[in-house]
């Protein structure tokens, strides 16, 4: 190899090596942002527990542990909070919060988990909506509503319907769009070096066919009452 080739080779290798060092330093220097939900530490664990209210409106609740499949599938530093609420007339709502750690893959699309639990999303009737929150400050919470039906062969009543509402929240950031969440996260990382700590919040209720709209209206009232108890409002 002649002298020019050696110089070019060393330059190229230096570029690659320098990039490796830069990547390691930048990654180590990334700061994790604050969550947009209320949390408390879990003894003996780096994870947190998302604190959900025990009572919302006329609903009492029971705390649920996250299932083993989910906890083993998602990153180890994922934090959770889950409660089943039951109203006096028997109406049930499941509230589930998944809070990421340093790994954004904790926040996954509902299509990944709903199919696994035996639900088929009816994309034609799914839509983005808003829920008006009054306390502690008034704002409109963007949510995504999915209507689901039982997959053939899945356990449970075959004609059951699921109204599934979800949104994403980080410190001073709210959205129902995956794309927007990822764009904001990338922008914030590049601008400030802070990795936004997103939580994926879901509220869902099972109903009979034809009751989806009434169920969604009831869920909206529930969300409007529950959200101020566990979610930080946006700062204007």
């Amino acid at each position, binding site marked *: 190899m002649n002298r020019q080739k050696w110089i070019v080779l060393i330059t190229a290798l230096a*570029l*690659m090596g320098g990039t490796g060092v830069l990547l390691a330093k930048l990654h180590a220097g990334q700061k994790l942002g604050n969550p947009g939900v209320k949390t408390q530490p879990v003894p003996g664990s780096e994870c947190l527990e998302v604190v959900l209210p025990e009572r919302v409106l006329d609903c009492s609740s029971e705390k649920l542990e996250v299932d083993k499949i989910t906890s083993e599938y998602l990153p180890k530093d994922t934090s959770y909070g889950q409660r089943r609420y039951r109203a006096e007339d028997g109406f049930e709502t499941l509230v589930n919060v998944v809070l990421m750690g340093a790994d954004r893959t904790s926040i996954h699309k509902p299509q990944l988990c709903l199919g696994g639990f035996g639900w088929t999303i009816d994309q*034609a009737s799914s839509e983005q909506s808003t829920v008006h929150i009054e306390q502690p400050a008034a704002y409109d919470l963007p949510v995504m509503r999915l209507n689901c039906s039982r997959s053939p062969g899945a356990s449970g009543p075959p004609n059951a319907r699921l109204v599934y509402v979800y949104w994403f929240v980080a410190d001073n950031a709210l959205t129902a769009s995956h794309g927007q969440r990822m764009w904001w996260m990338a922008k914030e990382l590049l601008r400030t070096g802070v990795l936004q700590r997103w939580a994926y919040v879901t509220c869902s209720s099972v109903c009979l066919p034809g009751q989806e709209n009434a169920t969604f209206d009831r869920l909206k009232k529930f969300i409007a009452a529950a959200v101020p108890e566990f979610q930080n409002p946006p700062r204007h």
Partner: protein
Amino acid sequence: MHTEREPGNGVLEDFRLDFLDCWQRLPNKGFFLVLLIAWLALFHLLGSATLGYVHSPSLFRWALNAYHPTGDYLNGEEGHGVVVPFVVLALFWWKRNELISQPLQLWTPGLALIAIALGIHVLGYLIQQPRLSMVGLFAGIYGIMGLSWGRAWLRNSFFPFFLLAFCIPIVAYLAPVTFGLRMLVCKLVEGIAHGVLAIDIVRDGTILKDATGHYAYNVEAPCSGMRSLVATLGLACTFGFLSVRSWWRRGVLLVAAVPLAVIGNLIRMLTIVISAEVGGQKVGDYVHEGGPAGIISLIPYIPPFFGLMVMANWFHDREAGPNRKDRGESLGGQNACPALETA
């Protein structure tokens, strides 16, 4: 030094001699290999910033998990990602004479390509988007080829190199497309079953079921035809570059891939429905699973393959015109595609 073939040589021996011949004629081999190994090592050790579903910093490990989490690549929607690099290598081998006959020499602007590729990877790594890092990976390999062998090599290797884009897992982001395909296939199956085959089938969204409840199928995302669509697009690209010169005809082949893939998937779904209608859920399931040796799973690929081949052949003949024999030899420095040669 050109190694002479002897008539009594077998295929393997001819390949060995050809390979040795090309190897000897290719300059800057050590230079290229050192850079390539360093490049791949970078992406293996600092390729992926997400340690979620697969706890590894390797971009290659991340990609394999994206193709299929348990390694069942044949049944994964992104499983073609494992095969494409070998297809690209095979096409590079097919183009070997054309590539080696170019003026091959060190080309220092290749360093700029490598720098750009590194920038793309740094961005992808920082914002935890491994797909962007994969773009950087392939761009960097292209840059290393350019640095080692020059601009003419880059120009002539663009096809098949760009086919590596099919290795980037994107199906997860194409839910609106897969849903649209699923609905289209379901509606077509419903229409044909009612209107042509007199099969009383009920469609509930993407669920197809018999009116009497003897069978039901949920056309889920894996049945959307995305796999056959990606394979068909890859075939269209390959046919387009092997057989056709003009870009607009290549575009027509690409566009034609979509309806051809839909037709292939439609035929498969109809086969399942007819089987279930005749023999019940069990027979339908058997056909759905692929039948003996998975041969029925190949049905979606038959219409696209033959459709594209016929179209490419027709375009090739139109371009060749009266001097068909001469044009056919000039398309690639050798016969463009033996399968498309007409008498």
